[in-house]
């Protein structure tokens, strides 16, 4: 057993030679990913996510800085790193079109050093896991984009990698195929804890659904890093609830609610009365120091003769976090599209 970090990067920079001037794709990235962690790099196109993955998967040398995978140096210990990692990239049409799906997977099982019989067993297992049984003997060139990406995903699991890199895995997939792929990823994690994932994506939902921690990246730098909850709290420290009541509370009304311990503020919600003209219903926007103060609010409302008819927590999205950090949204640089 080893106590090594799954991924450890310090000051990783990458500068591409270009005319009229060099382009800095990564500007000194520091990153630690624990074994068993699902980690996301979230950022718009051109943020440097793929460049970082290329360096970590030994496809590209950093201009400066150090990076280690499972304790092995990405510059000089590539053969050892390649034993414990695998990579799946999305949005491409790669594959030996004249081989069948099963043949292509078997071929890679051999490149990963699996004995022939074990290779076939693993291939058939992955074909079943990814739901490609019907296409198993189909030539790769006849597969749809989604099927190709599932094949690509199966290839990425052939060696049961200790660290799996997914680079925009659902790019270009339809809704169902993307959902399938995310489910396969989560199932892979659930099957054996300890597996590490580094995902790059510009889909907020995908990052939130799959990742324990997320780094928001832009222009080659990590701007913020934490759990999705921690990131949200960067832009909204308090918990904000929208509370709908059947009538205004008596004995001090909204002001009394606002004076409760743990309540930072209580004001009528922007949309005011919730139920049209003539109704006594009222909506409040209540800011709490933390969620535990909600109990006293609900109790106080009841004591003042009102009944709770609706309750919703208002949370900022990861895009709100990005906007707060960068001053622009994803769509300002690249057409933002929802996760498929």
């Amino acid at each position: 057993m080893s106590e090594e970090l799954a991924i450890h990067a310090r000051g990783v920079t990458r500068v591409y030679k270009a005319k009229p001037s060099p382009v800095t794709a990564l500007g000194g990235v520091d990153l630690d990913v624990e074994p068993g962690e699902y980690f996301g790099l979230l950022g718009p196109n051109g943020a440097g996510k793929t460049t970082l993955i290329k360096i970590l998967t030994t496809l590209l040398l950093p201009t400066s800085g150090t990076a280690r995978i499972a304790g092995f140096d990405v510059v000089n210990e590539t053969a050892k790193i390649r034993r414990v990692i695998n990579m799946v990239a999305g949005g491409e049409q790669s594959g030996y079109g004249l081989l069948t799906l099963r043949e292509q997977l078997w071929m890679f099982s051999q490149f990963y050093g699996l004995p022939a019989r074990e290779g076939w067993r693993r291939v058939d297992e992955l074909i079943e896991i990814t739901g490609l049984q019907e296409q198993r003997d189909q030539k790769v060139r006849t597969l749809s984009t989604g099927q190709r990406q599932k094949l690509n995903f199966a290839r990425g699991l052939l060696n049961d990698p200790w660290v799996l890199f997914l680079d925009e895995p659902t790019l270009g997939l339809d809704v169902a195929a993307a959902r399938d792929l995310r489910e396969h990823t989560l199932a892979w994690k659930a099957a054996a804890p300890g597996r590490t994932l580094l995902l790059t994506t510009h889909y907020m939902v995908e990052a939130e659904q799959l990742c324990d921690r997320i780094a928001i990246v832009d222009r080659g730098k990590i701007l913020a890093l934490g759990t999705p909850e921690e990131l949200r709290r960067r832009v909204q420290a308090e918990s904000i609830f929208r509370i709908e009541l059947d009538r205004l509370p008596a004995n001090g009304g909204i002001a009394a609610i606002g004076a409760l311990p743990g309540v930072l503020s209580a004001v009528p919600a922007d949309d005011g009365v919730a139920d049209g003209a003539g109704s006594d219903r009222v909506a409040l926007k209540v800011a709490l120091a933390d969620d535990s103060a909600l109990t006293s609010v609900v109790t106080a409302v009841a004591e003042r003769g009102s009944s709770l008819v609706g309750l919703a927590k208002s949370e900022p999205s990861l895009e709100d976090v990005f906007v707060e950090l960068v001053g622009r949204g994803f769509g300002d640089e690249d057409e933002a599209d929802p996760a498929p």
Partner: protein
Amino acid sequence: MAVIERPATVEGLTIPDAWRSFRTAVGLGWAIESNWSDPFLFAVYTIAKPLAAAMILVVMFNVITQGQGGEFLQFLIVGSALWNVVFGVMGGLVQSILEDRERYRMMKYLVVTPTSLFPILLGRSLARVAVSFVAVILTLAVGVVLLGVELRPNILLLVPATILGLTAVMALGVFIAGWCLQLRQEAWSYPEAIAGALYLVSGAIFPIDVLPTFLHPIAYAIPTTWWLEASRRGLLGHGSPGTIGTLPDLVVLALLVVTTAVVVPLALAGFAWFMRRAREAGLLDMTTGS
């Protein structure tokens, strides 16, 4: 539930890995090479093209010599036939590396496997080598049946010459493949140009004595010269016209061993350097377009 942990020890590339990858790549190479949708086109490319090239040379030669150069004709036929291997090996290696990067876009996935790209590359190109040997045999057969070439095979010389020669040519091909990795996809035509240059200086169709003097050191320093000479002796029972033909068989074979022993490590080191340079420049998964 099992918890996956990083193994305490992690091996680098092992010889069994490399061998397994090589065998698998041979299968892939054959699947690609034999996948001609039009068998007629396949026949034209693999048989008619080298045969036609050899026959053009023969006709030109006969016109110039007015049919009086019997011994030289044998020199020409054998050199021309064997050169198919050089074209096949160099072309095959370069085509493999460029196809994997540009057409199939699998280069990055191959690179991130624990096996080296080197055995995969060799295996991928072996089908082209096999096809080129078919062209050698056919050209020699036409020479024997239609042009009066007399073969007196000396297996003791031919077998080591073929093994050493193929090793040297593959080494040169690997070096060129590494170089082409630095270039755009049009680089597929480079090996033909390089093989064409070697064709002139290796004594494939001209005796080395007729080359300009400044080219002689180059001709004597490259293994293809000694491979062709050893193979001619192994096939025809005698050497080439000119100075080189006066050397004893063992000397020719020794020079082939020496030049091959120099070229192979240099080529492998060159390939490793090119691979590192490709990693440095981000070329391993680059699609250059045309």
